[in-house]
């Protein structure tokens, strides 16, 4: 049975990220960049502009934007698992207000949030 999607080999070889190589740390509040998007990105539109918290650092990988354009030797970027409150993502969310949603987002999509709320 075929797997759903072949992984890129960058994914297989990526090592655990030393904390120093990542801009954000676990627990940091981050805002997802928003604005016009051209071409292939892995950041879904429903989290753009939203504020979440770094749940973990997943590793370092090449950027999908570059890989999708045939650039296979670009810089590796930290990938974070960012945890959002569902009520932050969906204004009309009716579930438990403590429900969360995790999305893996590359460092170049994230901005620091100075004042936690």
């Amino acid at each position, binding site marked *: 049975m075929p797997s759903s999607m072949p992984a890129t*080999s960058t994914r297989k070889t990526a090592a655990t990220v030393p904390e120093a190589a990542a801009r954000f740390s676990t627990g940091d509040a981050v805002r997802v960049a928003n604005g016009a998007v051209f071409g292939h990105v892995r950041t879904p539109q429903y989290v753009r502009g939203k504020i979440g918290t770094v749940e973990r650092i997943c590793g370092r990988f090449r950027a999908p934007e570059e890989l999708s354009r045939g650039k296979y030797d670009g810089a590796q970027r930290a990938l974070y698992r960012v945890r959002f409150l569902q009520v932050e993502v969906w204004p009309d969310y009716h579930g438990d207000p403590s429900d969360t949603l995790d999305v893996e987002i590359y460092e170049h999509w994230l901005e620091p949030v100075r004042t936690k709320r």
Partner: protein
Amino acid sequence: MNELTATAHHDVGGAPGHEPIPREQHAFLPWELRVDALMWILGDAGRPGGRRMTVDELRRGIESLSPDQYRSLGYYEKWLTSLVAIMREKGIVSGAELRKRLAEVTIAHEGEHALEHAGDEHAQDGGDRA
């Protein structure tokens, strides 16, 4: 939804659903397995000539389909359409080569079909080719 990003018709997370998603798995057809295998081969950096494409390029091709194609094509039809487009974009295969090869396999397939049904007096064109 941000107005500037709302035009990415493949990015449907959170959009109202139009119809229920069928969740039962179907058996893979031989051509679907071949498309899957082809993608693995093209993405293998260890093969002679190196990696020919990445899954990110596959996704770019799929996301570049028209909204109509995106809705109507099946999963591996999208893969195949994208894979062919990326191979043509890179000049690894040309449209002429693809048309020539397609004509060859079409003739070969029709030959096999004729042999299978040789002596079958009820054989009709357009019969079961599964």
